[in-house]
């Protein structure tokens, strides 16, 4: 068996080619992810709830609407900087932003949130107001908010919400509730108390009372958000205003229960999985080969020690010990990789030793040795090349089990929190009960991706199996 045969098996069989193409695509995607994702994605972005606050929670992927034809609001988000108009009104300067928003048939958004950043003023704090102008020309005053004025001992100019944006969840805001109460009474003569309104804020904002009088029918059409600030002095004002209408569906892969964009996490998991698989496979296989060669070639006490050790390590029940060690040392990807390596080498060490023993007694090796080649030279020049194919095969065999092991550990809650992996996404989906309420988009894709990456390596090993184990190639039934 030669390395060349393995190369042929990979390049010239459909299975091998499929595996290689799939692996190549994964590597390219991984490189893109590593280059384009921010450093410290795990801590700063993924595990940071603030980052995901404007996303809908536990929303299915946006394309689901095309599958089940249910009306769903798309997730809508817009940021505006400079006001469109500024006019003087009495002692105030009124700056206005007109932000159009379209509601499709039956697709009322899940929530409404307003974020205002970088408020600056000289003396008097600006007043903020948001009005919703609806398709039927009715106007709902959604919010009136006064930015916090000067504190005792504070000197102007004053800055507010530079580091902590002012975020108001309009669908749950008390002042919105009372505005709506007023609006319903004036416009439709409906008397509802705050507790009645609270659960149907969005229905009221984007609908009209239905004929039966006990509910609200969605009103589709073009809405406009009119956002205004009232300031005293020129130069006072806000940096930006952001409006979010939460969708019932989000992005390519949906979101989890704290609104994380699963597509981002899933993509980020790819390079991590590949690195775990390849690093563990490469290092453990190298260790196994070196120890196996040493054991077979040196013989004597070294052989005995290495073989006994391999025997013991090969027979240790790995997962319980992994759990224990990770629990003690702490969840850290490097530690996970290190422990996986420490438990993956013995199989090859035993196998390589047997091969070296065979080769050592071969005529070629004996001849080379009698010509005075040094031990290490013989190992390097004559024995290593013959072991190479097994080395490569073993790398391919080991990689998927390392990936699965990390996923399993992550699922038990022992994953490295600073580096999100598919196992951790699954763990979150399981721990928070996403499984039991049928959040399939949270559960199915990460598992599928684990299977995809692991089975890519399985395809490769399937392709090279006839080379490594030629007896299986022709199996004929006798008689």
């Amino acid at each position, binding site marked *: 068996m030669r390395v060349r045969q393995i190369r042929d098996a990979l390049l010239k069989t459909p299975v091998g080619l499929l595996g290689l193409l799939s692996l190549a695509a994964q590597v390219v995607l991984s490189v893109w992810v590593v280059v384009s994702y921010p450093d410290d994605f795990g801590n700063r972005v993924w595990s940071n709830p603030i980052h995901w606050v404007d996303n809908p929670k536990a929303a299915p992927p946006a394309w689901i609407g095309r599958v089940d034809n249910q009306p769903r609001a798309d997730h809508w988000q817009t940021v505006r900087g400079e006001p469109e108009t500024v006019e003087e009104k009495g002692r105030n300067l009124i700056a206005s932003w007109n932000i159009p928003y379209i509601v499709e048939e039956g697709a009322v958004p899940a929530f409404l949130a307003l974020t205002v950043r970088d408020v600056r003023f000289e003396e008097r704090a600006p007043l903020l107001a948001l009005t919703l102008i609806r398709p039927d020309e009715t106007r709902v005053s959604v919010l009136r908010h006064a930015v916090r004025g000067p504190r005792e001992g504070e000197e102007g100019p004053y800055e507010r919400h530079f580091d902590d944006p002012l975020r108001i969840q309009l669908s749950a805001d008390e002042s919105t509730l009372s505005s709506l109460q007023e609006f319903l009474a004036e416009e439709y003569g409906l008397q509802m108390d705050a507790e009645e309104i609270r659960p149907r804020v969005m229905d009221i904002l984007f609908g009209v009372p239905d004929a039966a009088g006990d509910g609200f029918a969605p009103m589709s059409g073009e809405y406009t958000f009119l956002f205004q600030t009232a300031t005293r002095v020129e130069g006072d004002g806000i940096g930006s205003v952001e409006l979010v209408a939460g969708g019932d569906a989000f992005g390519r892969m949906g979101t989890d229960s704290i609104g994380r964009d699963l597509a981002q996490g899933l993509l980020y998991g790819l390079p991590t999985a590949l690195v775990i698989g390849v690093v563990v496979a490469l290092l453990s296989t190298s260790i196994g080969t070196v120890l196996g060669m040493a054991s077979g070639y040196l013989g004597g006490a070294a052989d005995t020690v290495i073989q006994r050790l391999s025997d013991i390590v090969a027979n240790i029940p790995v997962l319980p010990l992994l759990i224990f060690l990770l629990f003690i040392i702490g969840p850290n990807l490097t530690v996970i990789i290190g422990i996986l390596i420490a438990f993956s080498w013995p199989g090859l060490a035993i196998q390589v030793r047997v091969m070296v023993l065979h080769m050592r007694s071969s005529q070629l090796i004996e001849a080379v040795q009698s010509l005075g080649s040094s031990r290490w030279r013989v190992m390097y020049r004559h024995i290593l090349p013959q072991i190479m194919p097994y080395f490569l095969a073993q790398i391919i065999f080991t990689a998927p089990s390392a990936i699965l092991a990390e996923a399993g550990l992550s699922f038990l809650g022992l994953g490295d929190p600073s580096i999100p992996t598919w196992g951790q996404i699954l763990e979150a989906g399981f721990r928070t009960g996403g499984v039991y309420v049928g959040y399939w988009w949270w559960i199915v894709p990460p598992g599928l991706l684990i299977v995809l990456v692991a089975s890519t390596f399985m395809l490769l090993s399937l392709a090279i199996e006839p080379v490594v184990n030629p007896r299986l190639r022709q199996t*004929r*039934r*006798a*008689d």
Partner: protein
Amino acid sequence: MAPVLQVRDLYLHYADPAGVVKAVDGVSFELGEPGTALGFVGESGCGKSSAANAMLRMLPGNTARYEGEVWLDDVCVSALDAEEFRRTVRWRRMALVPQGAQNSLNPVMRVGKWLTEPVRQSRSSDIAPDALERQARGLLERVGLPAGAWNLYPHELSGGMKQRVMIAGALIFSPRLLIMDEPTSALDVSVQAQIMNLLKDLKAEGLSILFITHDIALASDICDRLAVVYAGQIAEIGSSEQILEQPAHPYTRRLLGSIPRLHDEALPEFIPGAPPDLRNLPGGCRFHPRCDVPLAVCPERVPVRLKAEAGQDVWCWLHDRTVNQVPLEVNSE
């Protein structure tokens, strides 16, 4: 009296991705009186072992063509259906000592059990267990194995011992015919001699032997008659003396010439060219590309059975006076 064994037009072809392997291609011969031995001699890969398998109907899964008649004591055993052949002929009347006895014993079965298994499994035999054991132990003693071998596993036996167990096993039903496929090729010379002596004794007791080997000298030691096999066919058949002293086929001559001899000036000659590929055989006489005296007719027509001497038949156009004896012109490109 009918001959012990008669084989007529035996064919065994295998299907192979690269073409049809014509391992046995129209073989006919007979083995006369009881207590005689016929040698099947030829280079490796010429189809000798396939002929043995064909006679025992041991057919691999990729068999493409299997036909011919096998007569054992006036009974056409090839006409029996598979199950009957198994129950009445195989091992009972025709037993095989295979090539490579090293792996022919079940690794997890003790020798005694293995030896008596076919009898114990046989529905037709009603021999008492202790009588069977006595008989089997007698056979072990006969082939020169210590009594203790009875309880051993194959991995505890040497190569020679395994070969003897195989022979003892083949004799358990006291068959009429023993087919021995290279029975000694893996053994060292002293063991080989012991086994040859054993075979001679068995022959003297009336056992007929088909002795398959690549070693023509060894074959002549025990065989009364020899058949020289080339590319799935018999090239020449005759008494051992005739084959050794006056070979009629050019291939036999080259085969004899390739044996190194003591006290001989002539160096052993090798046969030019490679043994033919059974998937892709030359037309006409299959030996003609390697023959040193080919005729013009040889590539054209398949030779027929011709009488060279009384009791010596040869498949070679050199012996047909009705054929134009013009040598083949060799293109020396």
